[in-house]
């Protein structure tokens, strides 16, 4: 397949949720794509819409959610207009997702080895005779100690980080074309984290898999991603090749986000938390730039409608009237 054809392409996506107290405009005009063999990172603070973007791309939006505009193309499939049967087939065959809360995504009454085995069998990559051995191999690859015996453990018998690694093993067993990993290694210690990310990276390379890594850990995004998409309050506010983003962030929010990362030495007071919070996404009159209330560079021109992404250099898009 052509390298440059995106495996996933999201265009102008807007998503709303109905709640008891009003409509939450969770995503607005979100666009991003990921190419074959590429790893992109989606970063941004809590509640900025990272998980909702991923779930919508997989066609698993909460019942109260509604796509009000936009399109999602997943390996040629028009996700928003595809039948549920089609989508189900695609999930687990072409796309896998590692969910943010791993233990709840596992079946509590089936051993983890069997759950991995189910995936392997469904994909025809194991037969009845080889399935146990392959599942054990898969447990070993995510560094579960004593995999022969742990094969028969139930999720409740494993630690949080182990369940997370089981999810990762399952997702990778599918040999997907696209892997969406929502905070895959949070809660894992640094050494295990590195081992898991190396594994994902290696498999991605081997199989030319496209990967979307959702994380709030900028350091990890920097280490592993080719390109980074920054989200804020349901908008994509900047995207650029990794190195360029770190060297020359253009959106004031991106710059703040980088400053807020703790760096080993120093005290709590040295960490600049970003003043203000996300705006109330239920409001009827959200400003065109949802960062404006927190932004030091804000001027009247920022409040003019129709704020669109600007390509400041090849592949570097910024949605800001007064970029740095």
């Amino acid at each position, binding site marked *: 397949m052509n390298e440059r054809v995106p495996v996933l392409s999201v265009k102008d996506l807007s998503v709303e949720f109905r709640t008891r107290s009003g409509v939450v405009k969770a995503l607005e005009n979100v666009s991003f794509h990921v190419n074959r063999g590429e790893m992109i990172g989606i970063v941004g603070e*809590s509640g900025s819409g990272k998980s909702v973007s991923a779930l919508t791309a997989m066609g698993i939006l909460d019942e109260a959610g509604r796509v009000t505009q936009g399109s999602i193309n997943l390996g040629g499939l028009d996700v928003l207009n595809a039948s549920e049967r089609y989508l189900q087939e695609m999930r687990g065959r072409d796309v896998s997702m590692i969910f943010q809360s791993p233990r709840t995504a596992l079946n509590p009454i089936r051993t983890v080895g069997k759950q991995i085995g189910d995936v392997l069998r469904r994909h025809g990559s194991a037969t009845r005779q080889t399935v146990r051995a392959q599942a054990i191999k898969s447990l070993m690859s995510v560094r579960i100690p004593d995999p022969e015996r742990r094969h028969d453990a139930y999720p409740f018998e494993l*630690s*949080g980080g182990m369940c997370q690694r089981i999810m990762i093993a399952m997702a990778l067993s599918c040999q997907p074309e696209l892997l969406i990993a929502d905070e895959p290694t949070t*809660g894992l210690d640094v*050494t295990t984290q590195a081992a898991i990310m190396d594994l994902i990276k290696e498999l991605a390379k081997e199989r030319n898999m496209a990967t979307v890594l959702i994380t709030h850990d900028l350091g990890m995004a920097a280490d592993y991603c080719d390109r980074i998409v920054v989200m804020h309050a349901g908008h994509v506010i900047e995207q650029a090749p990794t190195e360029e983003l770190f060297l020359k962030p253009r959106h004031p929010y991106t710059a703040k986000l980088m400053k807020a990362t*703790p760096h080993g*030495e120093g005290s*709590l007071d040295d960490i600049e938390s970003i003043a203000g919070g996300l705006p109330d996404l239920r409001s009827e009159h959200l400003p065109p730039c949802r960062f404006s209330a927190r932004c030091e560079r804000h001027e009247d021109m920022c409040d003019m409608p129709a704020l669109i992404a600007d390509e400041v250099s090849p592949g570097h898009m910024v949605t800001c009237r007064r970029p740095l």
Partner: protein
Amino acid sequence: MSALLEVDDLKKHYVLAGQGPSDNPLIRWVRSRMTSAEDHTPILHAVDGVSFEINPGESLGLVGESGCGKSTLVGMLARLSDKSSGSIRFAGKDIGEVPSKVFHAEPERTDIQIVFQDPHESLNPRFTSFDTIAEPLKRLKGITDKKELTERVEAVAAQVDLPKMLLSRFPHQLSGGQKARVNIARAVAVEPKLLILDEPTSALDVSVQAVILKLLVQLKNDLGMSYLFVSHDLNVVRLLCDRVIVMYLGQIVESGPAEEIFTKPAHPYTKALISAIPNSAVVGNQRVRLTGDPKSPIDPDPNACRFHGRCPMGEDKCARAAPPKVDVTSDHYAVCHFAQSA
């Protein structure tokens, strides 16, 4: 000063399901015929002889690899699960003897609060954020007045940077980090003497994380709250904790003042952990990459160091004898054949 929490030789062993001795005499008999081995039950040593103290107003960090027993340990301390042996004394009382099933009726229930590792799993799907935070205030603090309750809930929500508009939402309507904040608010609301936090910040972005850490420091200063802070994020531990204990496969391998642990780690595992911190200047910037697989917590060899096999310093004797506890300084020790007193 007497300690708030004293943990002595605490153990939690799990008998592995389906593999243990059967209640059925027939099965026992069949098994005894089929294998020559004695009827041995595999036992998983999740927590294996852990001792430490937490003083009032002190924050203790607990670090260690995934699966080393941190959640199992804190589960016993919060009296959600029963120990296999050892003792847990809280404010002088042996709460380890109170079965976890009836602990909720003890007065200490209010004084020990825990923030669980998985924010989603620990929230009741039918409770709004408001209900979740209000529940312990009603049950443990006896606050029934609607107005007072609302005020209290809104005040803690603000403290943890949880926007008021999210109080009417159910868990499935919240993002990962928002759920984490609801959990922290619930635990902080009743102002416990000991707050146990199991990976509280891993779902939080740096900005919210800073808010939470500052809140914890403030509560410690204002109310003298003590913490047991479980985290894989060593930068955060360094910022928040006075002392640190490092666990490896169910046991404490090093314990000492935070600054010393970070600048002069004495155990090879701690050294590896610290050198792996991104942009850490310690340990001469030599990244120690651990090779080899961790040992199994199932039936560990009592006459060997559990880190042997991955340890960059390991030698023959590490495989033949359990390492001694060596005092590095008066309040800093490491459990290793090669640890030395300063």
